[in-house]
């Protein structure tokens, strides 16, 4: 018990003192996960929108496939990418294995189905009349997508927060395709895993605190904006 409190105190000190290695790991995590989210989000938004407002042959298949991909373990995505990007793999010439772009691709594959599922659900909550109204008033398809996204902005924000939380906290794929290279592909989660196996808990606890604070911050953000919206609607 004593060692836990000592380690936690040391972890807090490490955070506050601005330890370069620790903050470097945090920076890499944020860079990779935010890049993945920013790339995946517009495509997921469009697919979620199309699935909600159009019926076409193969619609059910895309929804089913997406729901199936939701359940794929991150290590399986990591394994697939390792097979593709390894020297003998079909995309080996790209030399992506153990690089940040490979980690970004992995995280895109992890968050995309989640984003599509959540955004599909969010858009389904909007009446088709909204789409018809915007279009008949002369809005382009893109402008209509924007207007309807504004209608479900809190659900969209929640989808982004959930997806970000999922990819920044995943370890399997990041470890396999990133390789946990110090100062380059070492992220919060891969670092925690590595330090724990070495019996070094201080950095792991410090990074764990960062993840918890991040989760708290993001949820507060969603909560505050949702609260403002409810307040606004009541006035």
């Amino acid at each position, binding site marked *: 018990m004593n060692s836990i409190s000592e380690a936690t105190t040391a972890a807090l000190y490490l955070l506050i003192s601005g330890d370069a290695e620790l903050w470097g790991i945090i920076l890499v995590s944020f860079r990779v996960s935010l890049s993945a989210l920013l790339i995946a989000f517009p495509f997921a938004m469009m697919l979620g929108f199309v699935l909600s407002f159009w019926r076409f042959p193969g619609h059910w298949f895309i929804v089913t496939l997406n729901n199936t991909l939701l359940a794929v373990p991150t290590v399986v995505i990591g394994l697939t990418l390792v097979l593709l990007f390894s020297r003998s793999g079909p995309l080996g010439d790209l030399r992506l294995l153990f690089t940040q772009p490979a980690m970004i691709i992995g995280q895109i594959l992890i968050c995309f189905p989640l984003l599509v599922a959540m955004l599909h659900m969010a858009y389904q909550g909007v009446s088709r009349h909204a789409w*018809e109204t915007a279009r008949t*008033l*002369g809005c*382009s398809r893109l402008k209509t997508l924007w207007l309807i996204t504004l*209608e479900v902005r809190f659900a969209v924000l929640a989808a982004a927060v959930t997806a970000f939380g999922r990819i920044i906290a995943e370890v399997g794929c990041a470890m396999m395709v990133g390789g946990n290279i110090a100062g380059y592909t070492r992220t919060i989660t891969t670092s925690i895993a590595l330090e724990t196996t070495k019996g070094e808990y201080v950095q792991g606890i410090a990074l764990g605190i960062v993840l918890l604070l991040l989760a708290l911050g993001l949820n507060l953000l969603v909560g505050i904006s949702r609260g403002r919206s409810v307040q606004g609607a009541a006035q």
Partner: protein
Amino acid sequence: MKYAELKAIGLQHGFKRETLWQIDYLQLQAGECVHLRGENGSGKTTLLKVLAGLQRPSAGQVLINQQPVRLGDGRCCYLHQQPYMFDKTVRANLAQVLASRPGAKHEKCERVEQALHWSGLSHHASQAARTLSGGERQALAMARAWLCQPQFWLLDEPIASLDEKGIERCVQLVSQLRQSGAAILMTSHQQGALTALCDSQWQLHQGKLTTEGG
């Protein structure tokens, strides 16, 4: 308003293999006001949506001034029986119509104020649109469309489930549209002041459209 004409040729619509209606020819001209009648489920709403370009017909085509109807060009506006209110204030609901259109900001603001005045919603400008009454919602929907200056107005049961005051407001707005020379095609189950504004009637019955003068 300059001359405008909406034509439908060989129009047919149905679900799966069942034909809902088949209309060989239909014409609506600027200044005309037509009351489209028909039983529930006869396909009036579908017809209006097809004419507005919101739905594709199974066969045939709709032409506005000899050109195929194109959704999003603002020449033909379809208004729902229960208008959709965007989660904004009344003023913002109007402003968004002009947001992506060319023009100076102050001109757009002026147009929005004109629309508020035209629809009698000036006192509700800062109110959340979703808190408006049924009649006020219909007035806001018409004001939004008014900003687009459409040549053709397709009104789907505009006074259904409105109280007397709401009906009166709606009749007044449609009457103003009539005076401006716009072409109006409306559906309504209620005969009264609104349908009295129409100069002809179309009847959609058993999949066929018949016309008669007012």
